[in-house]
């Protein structure tokens, strides 16, 4: 394709948009709304997943050792627990470390004076596991180790959170897939309407010697452009809305930690929305024109 031809096709595209301004407006606004829904859903899922993960990260078990366990045995136990499959972290809380905390917590409630500086607490480990659903099994393994007195695990709560996280992930993926399908149908129909309104032109262009590519290109460029502009508008609206919401919530519900509107979030949203918008615009317009090409 020569430069002159490319220029002609570009001019055709813009004249087409200008002279069908109303249809273009309808297409762009429909695309904006459907991508707004898609972007909104993705933000919601990202936040829910993040919350579930934060929550999951708080689950750990406490392994209490026998009091007066020799240091060497304590260290080998630490090695053993750290090496267990599924364990991601094992931190020692020595009785010296635990004592002041313990005292502070019980201050005033219990009279500790008769302990006379004696420290009744055992050494303990704080153990984290990668997969919350395996917490119970790991706890049982640890319980069987020599030198371990008791294991305080929270696996029931942990499992509930884990299954919640899974549900959020699965539901979110399903939702995104469904919304992309819905967006595809809506965008497809709108773009098909813009082409349908001009189907006679397609036949005429062919009759005066335009090749299929020559007829198709301006329509496809137009559809892609509509998709891109719709996605951009959706991104702007979403960005402004989310930043506002984030600030509001940080002030009034500070315990609810929303994802900050960071660069990576913006990048992930823009790539998805622009990609889906442009892709759908391109694909549906190409298919629509193809329907009305007669040869």
């Amino acid at each position, binding site marked *: 394709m020569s430069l*002159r031809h490319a220029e*002609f096709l570009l001019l055709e595209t813009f004249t087409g948009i200008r002279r069908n301004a109303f249809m273009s407006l309808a297409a762009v606004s429909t695309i904006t709304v459907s991508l707004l829904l898609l972007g909104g859903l993705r933000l919601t899922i990202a936040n829910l997943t993040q919350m579930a993960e934060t929550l999951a990260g708080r689950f750990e078990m406490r392994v209490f050792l026998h009091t007066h366990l020799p240091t060497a045995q304590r260290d080998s136990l630490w090695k053993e627990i750290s090496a267990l499959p599924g364990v991601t972290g094992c931190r020692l809380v020595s009785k010296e470390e635990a004592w002041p905390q313990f005292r502070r917590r019980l201050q005033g409630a219990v009279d500790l004076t008769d302990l006379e500086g004696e420290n009744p607490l055992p050494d303990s480990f704080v153990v984290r596991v990668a997969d919350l659903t395996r917490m119970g099994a790991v706890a049982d393994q640890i319980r069987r180790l020599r030198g371990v007195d008791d294991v305080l695990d929270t696996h029931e709560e942990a499992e509930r959170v884990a299954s919640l996280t899974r549900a959020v992930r699965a539901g979110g993926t399903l939702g995104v897939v469904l919304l992309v399908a819905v967006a595809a149908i809506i965008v497809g129909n709108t773009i098909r309407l813009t082409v349908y309104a*001009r189907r006679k032109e397609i036949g005429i262009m062919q*009759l*005066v010697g335009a090749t299929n590519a020559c007829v198709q290109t301006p329509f496809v460029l137009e559809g892609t452009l509509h998709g891109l502009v719709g996605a951009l508008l959706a991104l702007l609206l979403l960005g402004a809305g989310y930043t506002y919401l984030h600030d509001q919530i940080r002030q009034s519900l500070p315990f609810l930690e929303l994802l900050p509107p960071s660069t990576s979030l913006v990048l992930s949203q823009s790539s998805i929305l622009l990609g889906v918008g442009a892709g759908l615009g391109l694909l549906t317009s190409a298919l629509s024109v193809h329907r009305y090409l007669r*040869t």
Partner: protein
Amino acid sequence: MIEFQNVSVVYPNGAQALREVSLHIEKGEFLFLVGPTGTGKSTLLKLVYRELTPSQGQVVVNGEDVTRLPASRVPYLRRRIGVVFQDFRLLPQKTVYENVAYALHVIGTPYREIRRRVALAIDVVGLGRKAASYPGQLSGGEQQRACIARAIVNNPPILLADEPTGNLDPEMSQDIAQLLNDIHIRGTTVVVASHDIAIVNALRKRVVTLARGRIARDEAGGGYSPDEPEAC
């Protein structure tokens, strides 16, 4: 240059528009296609630029069997044939100027050349003052002339005109007939389907009369009178 061999056309709804038509048109010839309405004149022309393919028979244009032409070659066939459509077929979103220019743009003519040729073609059909109007803003006769300008703008070797004077007053019709004749004199093969007795008789060219999808008469330098083979 254009050859019909035993051509029949049956439309999908069963209407038989042409029956075993054989016709040979020489390069550089001028031919009138006449006959009552509904006898297949437009159908015959549509076969030449492959808007239709026959149910039976062959249509050869410039040595090429257009019934077997692959779809990708069809645009190139159409670029060598200027067509004045009975129903104009102007692009509604484009001005007269842009409509005429479109036929040149699709074949990659340089812009400067396009400006010159389009201005000339529009001038020849006397539409100079309407160049910036959209088809919806034109009278039937003006649309018809815009369509003629588009058909002749790239000097095609073949010009097909389907009722090119159907919407014009007698004086304008004479001008258009003269224009068609000028184009013919420059070497173009011209086929005109027409009811317009005045211009058929004025030019005294070969006249092929169709009746109910068949060729009823084929006369060189003939005239046309409406009481001839009236079908019904």
